[in-house]
């Protein structure tokens, strides 16, 4: 058994529900995560899958402590980080990195690619030898050195996402949260980015939480999967077991709803079972 990097127990997160906010006064809290128990094993990629509103992004944000849990505990690398104040979190942040969904909005338009990648290095006291470190980060993600002086708008979507990965990995973190990092990309670019992340995660021994709505992608990339629905874990197991033998009806529905790129004349027919539930 691999030692877990993250140990999550009874995790609950409540956020203000702005749709029910009175005109004057505070919005009532809505519980987004309703009690999570799981471990993220060291050095492997764990998929977190669910439909919109299932709370998968909230879970990710709680892991990297962009959100403070309302109950339960998060253990990271043997340390309880559940309620650590920001000042004490800061030294840990270099090991808690994120790759975002939309690099267009997560890369500063007024900074060069080099300065974007250098920012986390400087903040973590690795400001010496910056040029070489940036060059290494670019090379790692397969971008030419000439990109160092460019700006975000001069790059294609796939190149931008490579910059996002380069920035997250510049500090050689222990943990990377990848939240829907390919959902804005074309399939051909998506394949490049995912194979890159797969290779880097293996080479660097990264622990990755890979949030996605796409089970096909998860099967390729992840060793284990957490299926979420409405703030709860539906099923968590090893990837192959989940696909070969899903235990929950919801998991089966999710898998069955994926349109595979192959002809299947009966796919759009309404199954007899759905018409007359037994």
């Amino acid at each position, binding site marked *: 058994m691999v030692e877990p990097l993250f140990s999550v127990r009874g995790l609950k997160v409540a956020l203000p529900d702005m749709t029910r906010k009175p005109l004057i006064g505070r919005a009532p809290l809505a519980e987004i995560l309703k009690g999570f128990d799981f471990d993220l094993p060291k050095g492997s990629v764990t998929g977190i899958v669910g439909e919109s509103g299932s709370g998968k992004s909230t879970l990710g944000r709680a892991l990297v402590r962009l959100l403070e849990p309302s109950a339960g505990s998060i253990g990271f690398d043997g340390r309880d980080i559940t309620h650590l104040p920001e000042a004490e979190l800061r030294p840990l942040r270099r090991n808690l990195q994120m790759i975002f969904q939309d690099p267009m909005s997560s890369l500063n338009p007024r900074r060069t690619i080099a300065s974007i990648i250098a920012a986390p290095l400087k903040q973590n006291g690795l400001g010496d030898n910056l040029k070489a470190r940036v060059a290494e980060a670019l090379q790692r993600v397969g971008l030419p050195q000439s990109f160092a002086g460019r700006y975000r708008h001069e790059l294609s979507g796939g190149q931008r996402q490579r910059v996002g990965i380069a920035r997250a990995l510049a500090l050689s973190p222990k943990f990377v949260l990848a939240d829907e990092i390919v959902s804005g990309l074309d399939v051909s670019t998506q394949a490049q980015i*995912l*194979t890159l992340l797969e290779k880097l995660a293996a080479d660097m021994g990264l622990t990755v939480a890979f949030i996605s709505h796409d089970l096909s*992608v998860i099967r390729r990339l992840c060793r284990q999967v957490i299926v979420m629905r409405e703030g709860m874990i539906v099923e968590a197991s090893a990837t192959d077991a989940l696909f070969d033998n899903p235990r929950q009806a919801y998991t089966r529905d999710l898998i069955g709803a994926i349109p595979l790129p192959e*002809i299947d004349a009966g796919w759009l027919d309404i199954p007899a079972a759905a018409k007359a539930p037994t």
Partner: protein
Amino acid sequence: MSACLDIANLSAVLPNGQRVLRSVSLAVQPGEVRALVGESGAGKTMIGKAVLGVLPSSVRLVEGDMLLEGEDLGRLQPKARRTLIGARTALIPQDPLTALNPSRRIGPQMTDRLVRILGWSGEKADRRTRQLLDEVQIRDPERVLKSYPHELSGGMRQRVLIAAAFAAEPRLIVADEPTTALDVTVQKQILRLIAALQREHGTAILFVTHDLGVVAKISQKVSVLYAGKVVEEADTAALFAAPQHAYTRALMAATPRYTDPFASLKPVDGAVLAGLAAEIAAADLAWRRPHG
């Protein structure tokens, strides 16, 4: 039998002279679903907009013909063209939230179009709207008709727009990535719904998508686009059995499949892209010549 939609040699340019559609030809037969598949920038949405006559003003059609049920759209006066397009076609858009007016209730939004464009009586439009809401399996039409768009879920909003699209009995529907913003389980329901209504009403659909999985399930014919050029056209079954163009094969290999995780998700080979670039360049060279 004449085609429901017949596009021949359609080319469009931007003000800087760059071609965004490159001699596109395709036909949609009555009652048929034709998928237009390609990556971003391939021009698939542009074709849909050209058909509906809603191209952005910066895009100029410079050659080619579009025939809607045999009527040449290019030869009609603008007003006659709009009337014809309004009566015979409809759109199912990608994002139902921006397609619906946020400050009006669903009911009047759905009936207005029938009254204003088709000249139906309010009563007839209302009856028709309720009938269609029933067909898209909305169980409580009263509530939905009185709702504002933000009060409905994404799937419900898309159902409303599908109902609105079919309500006027169009001959052709342009469906522009209608399920891209939806969760997979909702996507499956919506695709089922579109397929069922399409069969029942005998409507032809030009189905724009980037997802080969959706193409395989919903369409009978498919055109694969790259940089505004149709690189392959085939029966859907034939395309998936034996893709002819290297780009089509590359797209298929790049599409992830949970049934075969390690044979899929293959990055597109540089040679394929180089071949495409050469093909596009050659097509442009050949095209410029007659025009000086």
